[in-house]
């Protein structure tokens, strides 16, 4: 008679299949089990298989009240818990790039040393990129976008910086080399956050002025325009976010809600990028999702992103008592509030939960090792 104490014997491929169902914390521990398990768990294709099953979460940057206003701290919202990861290094870190394969870049727009930190919120691992100063003086600000080329499985960081005389574009491949210049970048810069999808990064900076989405092929390292016929979408103001939903680019226009005109937000899904076709979906938000106007001007009361398939996640611009978001299910047309309780691991006394413009991103739980990617072993 077998009992629960006897070891099971199952083939390796099934053991590793079971591992893809585990949370990252367990996987990090199980790297100790044996050489083979460590090898598998550290493998990028395992990380990819694991990610396809894993939950998504939010990373937010908020100002810190206990110190100079310019200081920020990160908050992660996941599994019903708000947690303040202690990520060292950058004194004014507040800008978060979009997330690629579960990790992000953290930087600060106005940092003349152009410091960049790679951070994986799931493994709590952080790596500082070798610092580089720009050649010109008179630096103003820089923006960082993270990209992934699936054909070569390489990660690249694109940065745009300006010293007042036009915009400079450079690219860096994680794991080797130095920053390289890119020559055909848009002359008016890139201010809105990009989204990396299927080997290209997309920005909506030119959408209103030039009827096109700007795209950058991560592998080829070339910019291109994805045109949109004029009148294909009608945005009402500036309170819109470009998101990725179910493998498509979409623009969610929050204008009417933010301006207290109505409870309707409009989602424009870029169904057919080849032919420039956008499909509109009007979404009537339930009353409980509508934020109170913020007492501070210039700060948005509502943000949107997509964490889970078929859902929009609405995030209030300021949290009054609890940390929470609204999950709107597009097919059911229903929303629910999801609350995150403050983790007892952290000190919340200097809590000032006001989201700043670049401080929000959705990320997937990922066991990926930054040290492996950057070849620091």
């Amino acid at each position, binding site marked *: 008679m077998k009992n629960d*104490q006897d070891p099971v014997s199952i083939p390796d491929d099934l053991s590793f299949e079971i591992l893809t169902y*585990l949370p990252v914390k367990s996987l990090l521990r199980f790297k100790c*089990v044996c050489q083979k398990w460590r090898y598998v768990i550290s493998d990028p294709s395992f990380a990819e298989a694991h990610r396809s099953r894993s939950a998504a979460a939010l990373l937010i940057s908020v100002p810190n009240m206990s110190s100079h206003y310019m200081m920020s701290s990160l908050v992660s919202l996941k599994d019903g818990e708000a947690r303040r990861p202690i990520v060292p290094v950058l004194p004014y870190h507040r800008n978060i790039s979009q997330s690629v394969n579960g990790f992000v870049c953290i930087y600060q727009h106005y940092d003349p040393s152009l410091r960049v930190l790679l951070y994986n919120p799931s493994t709590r691992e952080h790596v500082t990129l070798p610092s580089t100063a720009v050649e010109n003086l008179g630096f103003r600000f820089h923006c960082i976008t993270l990209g992934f080329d699936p054909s070569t499985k390489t990660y690249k960081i694109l940065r745009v910086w300006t010293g007042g005389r036009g915009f400079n574009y450079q690219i860096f491949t994680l794991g080797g080399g130095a920053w390289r210049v890119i020559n055909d970048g848009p002359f008016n810069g890139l201010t809105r956050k990009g989204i990396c999808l299927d080997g290209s990064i997309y920005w909506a900076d030119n959408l209103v002025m030039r009827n096109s989405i700007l795209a950058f092929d991560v592998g080829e390292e070339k910019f291109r325009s994805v045109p949109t016929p004029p009148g294909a979408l009608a945005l009402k103001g500036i309170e819109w976010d470009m998101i990725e939903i179910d493998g498509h680019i979409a623009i969610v226009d929050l204008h009417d809600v933010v301006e207290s005109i109505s409870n309707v937000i409009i989602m424009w899904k870029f169904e057919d990028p080849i032919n420039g076709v956008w499909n509109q979906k009007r979404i009537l938000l339930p009353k409980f999702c509508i934020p109170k106007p913020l007492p501070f001007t210039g700060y948005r009361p509502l943000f949107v992103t997509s964490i889970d398939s078929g859902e929009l996640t609405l995030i209030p611009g300021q949290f009054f008592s609890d940390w929470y978001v609204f999950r709107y299910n597009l097919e059911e047309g229903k929303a629910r509030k999801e609350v995150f309780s403050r983790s007892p691991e952290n000190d919340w006394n200097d809590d000032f939960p006001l989201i700043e413009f670049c401080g929000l991103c959705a990320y997937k739980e990922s066991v990926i090792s930054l040290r492996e990617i950057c070849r620091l072993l």
Partner: protein
Amino acid sequence: MITFKSYDGETFDIDETVAVELKTIKHMMEDGCAGNEIPVPNVTGKILAKVIEYCKKHVESGKAEDQAASDDLKAWDADFVKVDQATLFDIILAANYLDIKSLLDLTCQTVADMIKGKTPEEIRRTFGITNDFTPEEEEGIRRENQWAFE
């Protein structure tokens, strides 16, 4: 009606609609390789009975259209996997061999939930794995991800 014959000679009569849930069998039937009695050599009668029970239930429930039916099925699934560890792993092996995706998914998730809190040593005992790290190597891995061990 299709008849399955397990590794240890037990036979089971099953409706065709249930039989096709086992993708391996479905392909055999489509290829015309299946006669009146289909041998299932890798699976014992005890496990095959469980697998068939699962497939029957899921075919009967069809596409659970309403939330109540869907919740009932989930509750049934939760009960279904309340078996001893050895049986659970045997069902995983069977679900894999017979290519029953939803059963494989259910059982893998169940095992994952069972083991997620274990220490590396407990995992080695469960899976019969020898520790081939030196104490220094193992300590190195622990230090890299200290928080995961707390």
